[in-house]
């Protein structure tokens, strides 16, 4: 890749040679000093002139040296520059040594522009594809966790094919942050459209669309964090960009690669449950209550009671009934790639499959990827390349999560009374005679979880095509015209069914939806580059961009089925159709001017003007500039030191504008399909045969102006002790003002929100990237540690005086995520009342704590993050592990609330049957006095303490330390494979999410997010599926 690039670069230099004095010809061969292999593409220059050539495939060159010149300069990325005097020789052979001093890695930056890392004036982190496939994640986004400073990955749940959210350098907007994903120059969709179920607010996680990418096709992923880095993408990359370059066939022999993994998935963390008390109410056995507030099992051994089957039984605990509900899921990931290339062109065809069965019966995911990346050179001037990717994903049994749905699985499983035998439950979820569900409760309110997983499965089917066609033409040696046209299209079908006889939806219902999304992008780019003089290189680029997105969804909810199991609209007595559309277009022109002085001082200036369809006509045009500079002071001052190998400082400033959501300008009346009724009982229009129309929920604004973000960044990169220590620092300050938000307004205005430019979000942060190579022996043992640290401080500013808070997202029962002036985005809700000394105020009559609403309970974002990645290699053995640390922030768990309030959590055993007086004070007319009132029962205590509505009782510190990734592999020695058809072979053991080393949240993995990947909200979960631990084998073979 680097070589190809450099060959191209050198070709330019060669062709633009002006001094063409032909005094004498010198030839020779350039080789790698350590291997002796020929080096193609090495730039050979006559010193003091612009005359140059490049070595061919066999490493040879021939150059005409003008009269008066006597020195050749050999330059190649990654190698030390060598100067050789010619004197009288006609053959000059050179062996180049690898340059350990220079960071000459190439990264792909905005609009696909490749730059050397050392020339950048901003931080850009590159993750090699190899790193992402070490222990492959089915969702490639998760593979970034802990690997890149400034990048935070929030997994929504353990749902199969579930979504993950990426946040780069903190959330910049009240509307949330969503980095742009770009594959081979094509901005693609990473949307995570919410999934309504037929049963109200319960939600199914259908994943985020970046999860469709085949990790095996990724050559590299570059994370562009600041606005200067992404300025040329403009608004779309306001929250950073993840630039993915896919693998291409290399010049040389045709190669076939196989990467195959077989893995086993288990629940990472199960709740700690009590096993002493049966179900009931205040110590009395009652089948109607699926909880743990019944009698002590050991004390009722002399009596028999009815179980859910109606049988007379003596109560006994089944300690593993929850654990045994889950099974070992299997994941098979296979990828077969065919690749090859020549001077004329290259190709790579990749076939991937991911087949998973879930940790719960009847859950499965099948994903198939086909990817083609092919390029062809037509003589010297014309080059074409195309990439085509096809993805098909089908899933079955994605669980319903959160609340207000009869199909919520986690609460059905975790809420099992301790006396329920899971095997009996499994074998008896359906009455063999009547076909009706056998309920857990005689009043038929509790669904048998096996009924849910066998009868009420959700299905999805996604097909996606994305790819682009790139034509590059060089009419003049210094001028390149290129055009990149790309399309990303997907269609997803969703089908959720709830069979007749499901308690909570007795008549049965289903939901079918079709979602379609299309992105079309065209970039036309003109590039001119040359050396103005031997020390100064100028590169000027100009581009034109057209970008359009079109999203459309149709859905039908059908209720009250006549024939069970027939999911046809005509079989339902009530159907509610709905549809939505969202379309936006953007036209932009841009320019980029880059100067490089002696390859140690770099300056880059960009400017872009966008015209957006979503803004008022008068405000639809906006311009944003950026400037960045890098200075390699060790080269500039020629510092020769045994300690400091390399040192660079960098700085950038950028300003980015962004547009509004489509249709934010018109006052639109919408035909209504439903009217709201609490507890998932919404009715439908027409009611009484009559339709209803509704005014907009969000008041449009005809005067919106573009949102504005200003970013300042400083940084430094150092390498010490012969590259044993690499250290990078970055400080950034990003302020996003004039935020275009649907600002929640008091409902007393009649509206839920109104579109405004308001408020600012400031994110300041520090990123440290440290790579240590403590041990590197001559015997081949190498230990490398990479530590990345990120600290981001977020602050809400410039809220209108009348607005103390701005609501960002709402959970249930008063729980809200809000922005408050001077603070970070926080979790707010019902808190314990406290006296001035901070003691809990306790009700004198009940002994229970008093509450108050609307209190801040902490920040939803962490104080800092750290990833520690260790790699050990010895001969063919490679071992690595990644520890991922989060410190700070708060987390609300609805699952813990349920486990505790229902008396099933282990800690609810404490004080049962004894007197418990909560510590606090009673509020009396004479002031506050110590509480002496005992709670009447622990059922009352936990019923209040852990009620869903008592937010504070269910809030925990969200810090964690996790063993994120472990991999051990062994590469067979080459000599073993000699005379076989196998080029290389490697066997590995790989594991992901193996161990929560430390967490402050009881019972569940603190990495869950009820709001999903598409929302600004996080730090809250309600009945999310448990996350999984994955362990497996890997085989890689190259033919």
């Amino acid at each position: 890749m680097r070589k190809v690039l450099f060959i191209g670069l050198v070709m330019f230099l060669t062709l633009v040679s002006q001094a063409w004095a032909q005094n004498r010809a010198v030839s020779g061969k350039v080789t790698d000093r350590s291997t002796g292999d020929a080096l193609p593409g090495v730039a050979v220059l006559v010193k003091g002139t612009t005359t140059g050539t490049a070595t061919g495939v066999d490493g040879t060159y021939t150059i005409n040296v003008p009269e008066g010149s006597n020195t050749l300069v050999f330059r190649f990325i990654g190698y030390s520059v060598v100067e050789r005097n010619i004197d009288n020789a006609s053959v000059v052979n050179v062996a180049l040594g690898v340059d350990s001093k220079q960071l000459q890695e190439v990264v792909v930056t905005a609009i696909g522009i490749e730059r050397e890392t050392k020339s950048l004036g901003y931080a850009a982190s590159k993750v090699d594809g190899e790193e992402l496939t070490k222990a492959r994640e089915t969702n490639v986004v998760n593979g970034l966790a802990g690997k890149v400073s400034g990048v935070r990955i929030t997994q929504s749940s353990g749902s199969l094919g579930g979504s993950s959210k990426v946040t780069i350098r903190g959330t910049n907007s009240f509307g949330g942050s969503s980095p742009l994903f770009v594959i081979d120059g094509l901005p693609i969709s990473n949307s995570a459209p919410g999934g309504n179920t037929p049963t109200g607010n319960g939600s199914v996680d259908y994943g985020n669309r970046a999860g469709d990418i085949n990790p095996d096709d990724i050559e590299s992923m570059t994370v562009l964090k600041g606005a200067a880095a992404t300025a040329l993408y403009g608004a779309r990359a306001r929250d950073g960009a993840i630039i993915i370059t896919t693998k291409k066939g290399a010049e040389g022999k045709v190669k076939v690669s196989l990467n195959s993994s077989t893995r086993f998935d288990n629940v990472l963390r199960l709740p700690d449950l009590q096993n002493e008390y049966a179900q009931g109410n205040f110590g009395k056995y009652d089948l109607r209550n699926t909880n743990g507030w019944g009698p002590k099992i050991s004390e009722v051994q002399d009596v028999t009671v009815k179980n859910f089957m109606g049988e007379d039984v003596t109560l006994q605990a089944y300690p593993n009934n929850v654990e045994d509900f889950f099974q070992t899921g299997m994941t098979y990931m296979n990828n077969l790639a065919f690749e090859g290339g020549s001077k004329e062109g290259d190709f790579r065809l990749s076939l991937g499959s991911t087949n998973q069965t879930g940790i719960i019966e009847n859950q499965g995911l099948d994903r198939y990827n086909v990817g083609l990346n092919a390029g062809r050179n037509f003589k010297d001037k014309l080059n074409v390349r195309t990439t085509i990717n096809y993805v098909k994903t089908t899933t079955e049994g994605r669980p319903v999560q959160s609340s207000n749905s009869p199909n919520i699985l986690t609460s059905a499983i975790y809420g099992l009374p301790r006396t329920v035998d899971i095997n009996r439950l499994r074998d008896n979820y359906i009455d063999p005679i009547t076909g009706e569900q056998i309920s857990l409760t005689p009043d038929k309110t509790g669904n048998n979880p096996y009924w849910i997983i066998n009868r009420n499965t959700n299905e999805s089917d996604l097909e996606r095509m994305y790819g682009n066609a790139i034509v590059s033409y060089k009419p003049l040696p210094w001028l390149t015209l290129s055009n990149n046209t790309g399309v990303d299209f997907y269609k997803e079908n969703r089908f959720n069914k709830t069979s007749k006889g499901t308690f909570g939806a007795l008549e049965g219902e289903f939901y079918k939806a079709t979602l379609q999304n299309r992105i079309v992008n065209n970039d036309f780019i003109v590039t001119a580059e040359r050396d103005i003089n031997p020390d100064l290189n100028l590169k000027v680029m100009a581009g034109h961009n057209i970008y359009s997105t079109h999203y459309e969804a149709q859905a039908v909810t059908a209720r009250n089925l006549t024939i069970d199991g027939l999911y046809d609209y005509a079989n339902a007595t009530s159907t509610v159709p709905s549809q939505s559309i969202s379309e936006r277009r953007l036209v932009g022109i841009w320019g980029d001017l880059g100067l490089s002085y002696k390859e140690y001082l770099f300056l880059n200036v960009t400017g872009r003007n966008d015209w957006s369809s979503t803004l008022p006509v008068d405000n639809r045009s906006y311009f944003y500039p950026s400037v960045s500079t890098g200075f390699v002071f060790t080269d500039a001052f020629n510092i020769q030191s045994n300690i400091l190998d390399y040192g660079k400082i960098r700085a950038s400033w950028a300003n980015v504008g962004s547009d509004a959501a489509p249709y934010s300008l018109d006052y639109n009346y919408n035909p209504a399909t439903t009217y709201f009724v609490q507890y998932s009982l919404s009715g439908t229009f027409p009611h009484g045969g009559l339709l209803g129309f509704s005014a907009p929920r969000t008041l449009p604004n005809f005067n919106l102006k573009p949102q504005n973000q200003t970013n300042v960044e400083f940084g430094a990169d150092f390498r010490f002790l012969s590259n044993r220590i690499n250290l990078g620092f970055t400080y950034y300050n990003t302020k996003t003002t004039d935020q275009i938000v649907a600002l929640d307004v008091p409902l007393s205005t009649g509206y839920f929100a109104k579109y405004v430019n308001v408020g600012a979000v400031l994110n300041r942060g520090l990123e440290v990237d440290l790579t240590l190579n403590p041990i590197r022996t001559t015997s081949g043992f190498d230990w490398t540690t990479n530590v990345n640290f990120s600290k981001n401080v977020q602050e809400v500013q410039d809220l209108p005086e009348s607005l103390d808070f701005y609501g960002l997202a709402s959970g249930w029962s008063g729980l809200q995520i809000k922005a408050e002036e001077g603070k970070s985005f926080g979790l707010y809700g019902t808190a314990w009342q406290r006296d001035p000394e901070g003691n809990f105020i306790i009700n004198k009559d009940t002994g229970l704590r008093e509450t108050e609403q609307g209190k801040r309970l902490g920040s939803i974002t962490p104080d800092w993050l750290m990833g520690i990645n260790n790699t050990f290699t010895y001969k063919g053995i490679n071992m690595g592990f990644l520890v991922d640390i989060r410190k700070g922030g708060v987390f609300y768990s609805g699952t813990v609330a349920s486990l505790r309030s229902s008396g099933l959590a282990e800690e609810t055993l404490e004080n049962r049957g004894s007197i418990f007086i909560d510590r606090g004070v009673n509020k009396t007319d004479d002031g506050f006095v110590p509480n002496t009132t005992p709670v009447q029962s622990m059922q009352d205590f936990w019923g209040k303490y852990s009620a869903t509505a008592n937010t504070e009782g269910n809030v925990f510190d969200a810090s964690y330390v996790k063993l994120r990734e472990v991999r051990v592999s062994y590469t067979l020695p080459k000599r073993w494979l000699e005379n076989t058809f196998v080029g290389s072979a490697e066997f590995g053991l790989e594991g992901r999410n193996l161990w929560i080393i430390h967490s402050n949240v009881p019972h569940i993995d603190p990495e869950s997010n009820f709001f999903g990947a598409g929302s600004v909200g996080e730090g809250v979960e309600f009945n999310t599926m448990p996350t999984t631990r994955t362990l497996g084998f890997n085989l890689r073979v190259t033919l």
Partner: protein
Amino acid sequence: MFKNIKRYTVIAALGLTAVAATSCESYLDINTDPYASTKVEPKLLFNYATTNWAANRAGGDNYIPIALSAQTIASGGNFGWGKDNVYEISPYSTGNTWKAYYATAGLNLVQAIAEAEKASPANNNAAAQAKIELATMMYEATLIWGDIPFSESWQESISYPKFDAQKSVFEQVIGLLDEAIAQIDETSPLKISEYDLIYNGDLSKWKSFAKSIKFKTYMVMVDKDPSVASKIGQMLNEGGMVSSAAANFTFPFYNTPDKENPRYKILKRYAGGSNIFFFANNNVLSYMKQLEDPRIPVYFDKPAGVSTYNGVDSEEEADATTATISMYLYRPDAPEVVYTYQEQLYLEAEAYARGLGVGQDLNKANELYKKATLQALLFNGIASSTAQDYVDNTLPALTSVAKPVDQIHLMQWIDLMDRPLEAWTQWRRSGSEGNEVPTLTQPEGTPAGGLIRRWVYSPDEATSNANTPSPTPIITQKLWFDL
């Protein structure tokens, strides 16, 4: 060469600008939602608003928390429904109810009024119909929260509406009703007819309903502001208020999927269609028993095998023998009732019994009270002969009881059991603190400080509107009208 670069760059840049500029305008003009309309007939907004309002009143955000906390029904402790009975009212419910009054119902009525009045010719009757509903909703909202935004609501230029004092809200309600009454032109064919599920475009009924709401408002105000007594007297003399059951304000639900009364839907969805959540509260049942009220079997169902109607106190544990609220009241096509003829008659009886703006006349009051009770029984499906017999022979006459006004209040309370917002209001206005009818006690487990007298403001409103009264009033704090 550098000049060449510059030249080409400039040419390219100009070219790109030209391409961008020329193609931009039409290419970018796509910002119109194809699935929405910028114009709409008032009747469509009116129907949406009315349905949302009725659904909120009948649903789990309004009916359940108010009925349980006001003690007209019981949850049977942990045996039945939730914790609303101990005043743990979900902020979600307060939020959704607020949302209905101001947004889903309120705003659409305001827009319906605007669309009707700006039409050419103006549809004055449609505007009046919407105004009457809007006034009624604001009357209800102030009875839940006291001081509420009204005068500055629904104005696009005002982002943070001020909270009007309750007295002012009542006056604005009356003002809006007067405006609507004056606007009605019964001869005009321009009105909301088919889309009026209440009166099917019968403007005389709208007018009588408007007057009744005005009258009811004065009746709520009169204890705190005796000056409105003259208005009460004036209205009694003028008449024109709801004068038959045919003019009852009821919103229909249907025994069709997704069109059923939300109270039934709760049972259908979560309890297999039977009532396992809501029980007879002794605060109603015991008085009905004392009065040998024939509505007992209408209001309540006995469990199978149980011979008596057993009630429970508000936070008492129910059991398998406790009577439940009847499936008749919770039938799928039970209408949502906003105003009835018997309610009007009881109020008139009260006015005469107390001499509010008219001379005190217990006989007249008794006559109205009996008529009211007869209407109440008929409304609940009691056979007319049984009803008449009860009124004539069993119902204590006002002239024979020690506290006639309290007797009226008790009958109002019983009549309103299934309309908890009205029952709660009736109880709060029925006497000064400690003298309400009936006497209620604070259920065990409720926060210290007394019986519930209001809701706290919706957290959504309180956190987003800086004009929200501070400190926020707590649930035990009395409203302006409540003595």
